[in-house]
């Protein structure tokens, strides 16, 4: 049973790796153009530039379920996908996703500009990142999780040792957390979350630190042999990364975020993807 799950998950991960196509926001299926007056309004007031006219181009690492991942049919789906569709709708735009990119390249991509307008990819707002890119208002709170094999019997303190290898996704806040809080352990930054979980599952690595919602989702879906040893209260907040050169876009996104909060769409999406609005 668990192996079934894993197999199907591996397939998904493979698809994510292979997806080299521009993935439209197919998650919502047919999408009617936004309400006319509203879209006129939005575009009329819009004081921002887009890589592609009328399109909100998003770049993300597409192996971060349930935020953005490739489903069995090869569609890019997830909470962030639905949210960006909702935001685009409010702004009178459609939205497209660039092919999968490593997480640590997202901020530089936005900073350099020209390829993508935004990165909505479970990116935590940090002061370091703020030196390179701007962020919208936070749209979701998150924490970190320390994952080990259920059978390992580790305590957190056991892990701060040189012969312990702790996986993380390169450039994430989990990556930084290990450096600072388990300085003696050997940190193993990987491009792919699944690779890290597989590694912990097979014993290549002893632990992994990754965003709590992702850990909960993937453990429930595929890695029943892993367990969350510690939920690390970081209280970090996801924001949408935008270039400093495009302040109008940030304002428009903030406006759209507020609208999505106000009309209940946000709660709807949280309910859909996390089974609770209390997150």
């Amino acid at each position, binding site marked *: 049973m668990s192996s079934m799950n894993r197999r199907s998950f591996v397939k998904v991960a493979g698809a994510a790796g292979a997806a080299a196509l521009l993935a439209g926001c197919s998650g919502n299926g047919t999408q009617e153009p936004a309400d006319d007056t509203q879209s006129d309004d939005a575009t009329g007031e819009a004081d921002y530039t887009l890589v592609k006219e009328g399109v909100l181009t998003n770049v993300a690492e597409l192996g971060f379920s349930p935020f953005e991942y490739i489903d069995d049919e090869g569609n890019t789906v997830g909470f962030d996908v639905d949210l960006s569709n909702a935001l685009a709708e409010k702004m009178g735009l459609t939205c497209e996703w660039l092919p999968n990119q490593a997480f640590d390249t997202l901020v*530089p991509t936005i900073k350099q500009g020209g390829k993508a307008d935004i990165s909505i990819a479970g990116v935590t707002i940090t002061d370091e990142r703020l030196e390179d890119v701007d962020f919208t208002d936070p749209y979701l709170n998150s924490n970190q999780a320390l994952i080990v094999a259920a059978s390992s019997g580790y305590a957190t303190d056991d892990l701060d040792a040189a012969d312990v290898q702790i996986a993380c996704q*390169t450039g994430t806040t989990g990556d930084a957390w290990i450096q600072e*809080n388990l*300085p003696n352990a050997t940190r193993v*930054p*990987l*491009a792919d979350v699944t690779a890290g979980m597989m*590694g912990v599952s097979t*014993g290549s690595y002893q632990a992994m630190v990754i965003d709590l919602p992702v850990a909960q989702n993937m453990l429930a879906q595929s890695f029943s042999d892993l367990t969350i040893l510690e939920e690390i*209260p970081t209280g970090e907040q996801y924001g949408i990364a935008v270039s400093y050169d495009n302040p109008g876009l940030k304002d428009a996104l903030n406006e759209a975020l507020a609208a999505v909060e106000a009309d209940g769409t946000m709660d709807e999406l949280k309910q859909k993807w996390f089974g609770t609005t209390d997150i």
Partner: protein
Amino acid sequence: MQHRRGALLVALALALSGVFATVVPQPAQALTTEKATARPNEDGGDGVIGGMDTRLTWEGTVEPGEEVTSVTLTLPEGSTFEGSTTRITALEGLKRMDVTGEAVPSGSSITVSFDQAIPEGSLLRLEITNMQFPSAGGECTVTGTYEAAGATHELAPSDPISTIANTPLQSMVNWLDEQPWVEAWNSNQFLGMFLKPQLLLTSFASLAPGWLLCLGIVVAAYPFAIAIGLVFAMLKISRWRVVRAVAVTYINVLRGTPLFLQIYIMFFGLPMLNINIDNNLLGIIVVAINSSAYLAEIFRAGIQSIPQGQYEAASSLGMNYVQTMLTVILPQTVRRVIPTVTSDFITAFKDTSLLSSVGVMELMMFSKNLTTVTGNITPYVAAGIFYLIVTLPLIKVVSVIEENIARSERGAGPRPKRRAQIADNADELVGQAAKKDGVAAEVSAVAAPTASLAPASAKEVATDVC
């Protein structure tokens, strides 16, 4: 089930704090210091260097029945919070509370006052970015005060944070920082992004271990690759169909799948079979096996490029198959394949970069980490230079050997001890002979077939028949 585990742990730690010898019992306090850490700011290292911007993270728990309205953190003399930014996070369990406030630096202290009091049971985190520890380094304990219910109390001191004084490398970087030409250089977007002098310097220092590991892996793997490759080359030209099929399967599967995939299968597959090997050793094994398939093809093509006449000459002397192979065919094959094998070695060396995907701490891994930390491409350029240090001389070696072989096959090789009169038309004669031999060999599927592998003999059988 895991819900609120963090909070539980905190409570547990508090309850048991008296039991553990390592935890010094604290007088009852309204705000208990949990921890204080600093982000490593050594370029390419993991030390916390004084006198340079870093981030201090301090955490404390507000005890039941208390509310905290402001916190002042104090570091040893010489630290500074000037120009820092502060991020305030308050959590109840995992649940974030909306807290705003204001941070006012004052020398080696910073006072953070909150717009709303932090309620009881909360975890309070202060992340102060772009502050500096004393340049002399040393153990830095965070002390300070907090205000609760209008009264000021002392904070329990944190565990010390180890900081170090500036390293020579870091001093050079700092020196570069001050140079006007460096600033001008870096102001060019391209140069600053790809060839930032400061980063180039630190990259070279911190990438060196990764570079050595790359070299170590490929140098350790290659003798095995050659041995295994030779075995499979011989199997592939065996006269037994089953043996050939085994060799063909091995070679084609390995050549027909990405190394990346092979790495994944080995790294995640073997442990599933309860085979647990050290990562670096596993890297050596993967590189050896992968290269062996390419080398098998190179050797096979090399062996088959030896003219049929060589086998016949050996046979006519009465040599058996093993003698023919060992004394006649393989010695010639070795000379012919050296350039291609060297090319494959170069490829294998570069391919070690793929091992970073599974956490082998090789060159790309180090540069990726550096790039992540700095948001700059220069570490990759430095990695490129490291690769070139190995590959450029080898590329040169390949071309020199190829030239030598071409020359010796044309018949103008180096002269032995004595100079001798040689028929002027010797070159031409050998050339003619070669032409008569000249049916193109089955050109190997090797990535970089060299000229030396191409000519091979026609089956001389045909000469008299047709």
